[in-house]
């Protein structure tokens, strides 16, 4: 603070005090600007003091000038400080005025769902395309010779009877609804020379009364590999890869010998229960293992039927129920849920992943 030693100095002190008080009183930038004009404007005491300097003798003018400058810069510093504070305040006020309640809900954009049977089919298809398979399909209303005869079903097999299989009016026994995706094995082989690597998803039909594990219209997925040197070990490796990708990385599989007309040797495959890992629980009915599919080496009858050299080429095939795969993968106890399209059920599968 500069002290003055004369009247002019007293006046300046008073002006300074008034100005500082004025700054303190200013509550916004506009009143601060008014205060600034009052304190430092052309009519202010400071301006008058500065203009009266030229009337003083040179020595006194230098001293007095220094005092005026000091007073002015005191006032300006006060103003600047006050302005900064008020500006910060004002900005804060603006942010407050612009504040959004970010906890309000966003626009309601509903994502739908892919059907669990679609998801499971894709998942399985992707496993096999990764192993070098392509996707094939064929008719659902099929020639009985592809549904049965070419697949080495004896004519007396119960599947050929109208108790088990749907036939088509006006077509006698020649045309039936495929009870499995296996006829596409024959069609795929007929359509090309070996090697053949195909995976075949599709709908199938059986005259089954619907219950938690049976449907009259259901999905299957079939795989076929025919090449030189295909072994049952290859089948085991592929099924193992499949089961572990679908149900869990470290689960074991086991093959039990079985019988199917179109494969030999044939096997059923169990995967270690993914709930209890073999201990036995409700899901696996205490077995520790869950049956997942049937498979085997392509019966030479089929290879001969399509005109392949059954000595040179061998192959494997497998078939699994899509509903069963999906039910196991998602813990669904009744496969009829898959065909009811109840949104409360489908909602479990919401999203595209």
């Amino acid at each position: 603070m500069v002290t003055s030693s004369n009247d002019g100095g007293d006046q300046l002190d008073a002006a300074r005090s008034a100005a500082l008080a004025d700054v303190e009183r200013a509550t916004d930038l506009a009143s601060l600007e008014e205060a600034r004009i009052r304190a430092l404007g052309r009519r202010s005491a400071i301006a008058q003091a500065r203009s009266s300097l030229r009337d003083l003798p040179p020595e006194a003018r230098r001293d007095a000038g220094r005092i005026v400058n000091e007073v002015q810069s005191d006032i300006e510093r006060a103003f600047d400080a006050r302005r900064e504070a008020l500006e910060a305040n004002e900005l804060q006020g603006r942010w407050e005025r612009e504040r959004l309640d970010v906890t309000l809900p966003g626009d309601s954009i509903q994502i739908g769902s892919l059907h669990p049977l679609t998801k499971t089919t894709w998942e399985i298809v992707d496993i096999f395309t990764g192993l070098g398979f392509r996707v094939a399909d064929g008719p659902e209303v099929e020639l009985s010779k592809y549904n049965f005869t070419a697949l080495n079903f004896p004519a007396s097999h119960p599947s050929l009877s109208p108790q088990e299989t749907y036939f088509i009016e006006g077509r006698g026994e020649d045309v039936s609804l495929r009870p499995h995706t296996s006829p596409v094995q024959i069609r795929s082989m007929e359509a090309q020379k070996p090697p053949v690597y195909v995976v075949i998803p599709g709908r199938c039909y059986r005259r089954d009364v619907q219950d938690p594990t049976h449907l009259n219209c259901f999905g299957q997925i079939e795989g076929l590999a025919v090449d030189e040197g295909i072994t049952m070990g290859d089948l085991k490796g592929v099924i193992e890869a499949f089961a572990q990708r679908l149900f869990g990385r470290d689960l074991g599989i086991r093959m039990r010998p079985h019988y199917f007309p179109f494969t030999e040797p044939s096997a059923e495959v169990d995967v270690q229960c993914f709930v209890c890992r073999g201990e036995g629980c409700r899901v696996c009915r205490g077995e520790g293992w869950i049956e997942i599919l049937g498979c085997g080496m392509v019966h030479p009858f089929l290879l001969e039927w399509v005109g392949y050299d059954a000595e040179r080429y061998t192959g494997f095939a497998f078939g699994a129920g899509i509903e069963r795969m999906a039910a196991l993968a998602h813990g669904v106890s009744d496969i009829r849920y898959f065909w009811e399209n109840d949104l409360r059920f489908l909602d479990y599968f919401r999203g595209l992943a």
Partner: protein
Amino acid sequence: MRVPIGWLKDYVPLEVTVPDLVRLLNFSGTKVETVHHPSRAISDVVVAKVFSIEPHPNADNLTLVEIETFGGDRERVVCGAKNFAVGDLVPWAKVGARLPDMVIAERKIRGEVSRGMLCSGRELGVGKDHSGILVLPPDARLGTEVSEVLGLNDTILELELTPNRPDCMGMVGIAREVAALTEAEMTLPVADMTPLDSSPGVPVELADLEGCPRYVARSIQGVTVGPSPAWIAARLLAVGLRPISNVVDITNYVMMELGHPLHPFDAAKVTGGSIIVRRAGDGEAMTTLDGVDRKLTSGDLVIADSDRVLALAGVMGGSDSEVSPHTTAVILEAAYFDPASIGATSRRHGLRSEASARFERGMDPEVLPFAAARAAGLMSEIAGGATAAIADVYPAPFARPRITLRPPRTDAMLGTHVDPDRQAQLLRSVSFTVSRDDGGLDVEVPSFRPDISREVDLIEEVARLEGLDKLPSTLPPGQLGGLNETQSADRILRRTLAGLGLHEAWTNSFMSPRDLDALRLADDHPARRAVVVANPMSEDEKLLRTTLLPGLLRAAQHNLARASGGVALFEVARVYEPGPELLPQEPTALGGVFAGTHSEQSWDSRARAWDFFAVKGMVVALMDSLRIPAPEFDPVAGMPFHPSRTAKVSWGETTLGMIGEVHPDVCAAFDVPRGTIAFEMAWAAIVAALPGRPAAASLPRYPASLIDLAIVVDAAQHAGDVERVIRSAGEPETTSVRLFDVYTGPQVPDGKKSLAYALELRATDRTLAEKDVTVVKSRILGELEDRFGARLRT
């Protein structure tokens, strides 16, 4: 098939535990479905004697039965069955007794106290028979636990046999497997093959050698028909057969033991004393043992005497020649019947029996004399019968197949090495005769293995006996795998629709004719031409669907009925279109149904219901996701859609499908709200429109001019046509057309409407000048005026 362990032990020593046995069977191809421990489920059910039977005073279908038990104690129970008589022995569950499905308490039934219960076979868990009370063998001791009498203390394996293994349909066949798996010796039951005299026996004429190539008939005389001893009855019950009489039970017992069905005729009822095996005459009639009158066809193989049909060969005997309590002489049949013939007859008559189930799979032609002798031996032991003579007619004996197995072929098939000696040893273990020769193993197939006819069958035997757990785990070479363009597009389409908020549905491929009626389709509508199922189980599966809409509408209804405010479903699936070819076309269709709330009211937006334009926009977005140009939408009328709120979707000449409001009558028929929107499109048309890879041209170098163009046209004028004209007249400068306002009201004359478009004009070689824009604008206006009498709105 049920296999009591105790019975199995008659033929093979069992030195493994039951769990080990189960594992061995499971992993060699004989699947053990369940292990039963019947006695664990039953206690305090004892043998009792029926003392008196009185009518229940308050119920016609009930009786009051007084029973006598050990020590002469009497108790009274209320009973519903009437298949027993005073003096019969029956299973009495005491008060407090435990049965597989219940615990018995003292109850009052229609006002009468019942102290316990008399049990049926099913209630005891010994078979499926629930038609009456299980009458016990007369030599059972009063007061004994029934589980002991019935052999229920035994463990029973329930096997799921595969149809290729008829040899496993008897205890001996299972024993053969077990012996091979446990490296034990098996023993066959004893049977004396010699007859009393060496006379040729019953004359047998085989008139159809293909249907019946071998027939053994043993004449057994001096039998006394009566109940079976407890041990036979118990074993039959344990495997699920009902004891009938000693003679019949013995044939059943031998069938369960050796796997081969036998049939006893009452010799006195065989007219002319000879047996003829022939095809039936068309329309020939007989009554089978189950009391059903059957009309036969020339496809049915029958056993006949000189006058009439005695039995439906290999399926069921006739009631005429049935063994009765008065029978004293029996002709015991052991025959081989052609599997296909038996299967056909069994299916034709809807009649499956223990016998037909075996014959249709192929029996052992060589076991017949032995099976007949075994049964005759038991009859002599139990029913006092003696064999007088044996006829065995087998004019053209089957040769046992001989097959060469190349051991390296086994290795190549399995992907692992099994030593040739080991392969031979495994085959010998299940009764194949194996010798080595230059080409590999020379294998003779036993007569009871009709499933073995070629090398690969032997490889399977080796594989299953060696164990599939020995296989290595390898991967095949594979090819270039992956999805083709159509398959990839299918995934994009489904993901887009799901991303747009739709739920994917899978609905049944069948439809009912009623569905087509509910869609209000005209009789000549193409969707009426459907593939017809010849043997539907119900009306609902009579047809294969020609449209996805019924399934989707039903799914929508299902959800709306469960308080779902809105529903948006789609399905990608085949429809079935019959044509002149043997097989129908199976084009894939894409269908969608939308009803109710599209979006709920929110704090910043109003509720919106599904309407035509919401769905139309979605269809355009869907095409966009596949980079297919937006299709054209033109008004069209046709069921099942609303006559004036429906569009045909097309690209030029290619029709994609229809989109529109569902006709109010159809909404009513499917019980969905009025205003439900639906579309159905042909997937093939979408696939055909898929573009190739996008080529990225350079970006425009000159700025665009944006202008608004508001015109006045007749109120009925379709905006789509206007837009088409703007686009064509505006070529090549017009690069974008967007309708931003449709207006009727003051400022627009009555009967007119204003359409306001935002246009983007652009040239590739320069910035368009004001006058260029004016030229384009007046070109468009001129064309609009010519075509629609349109005026610029001022």
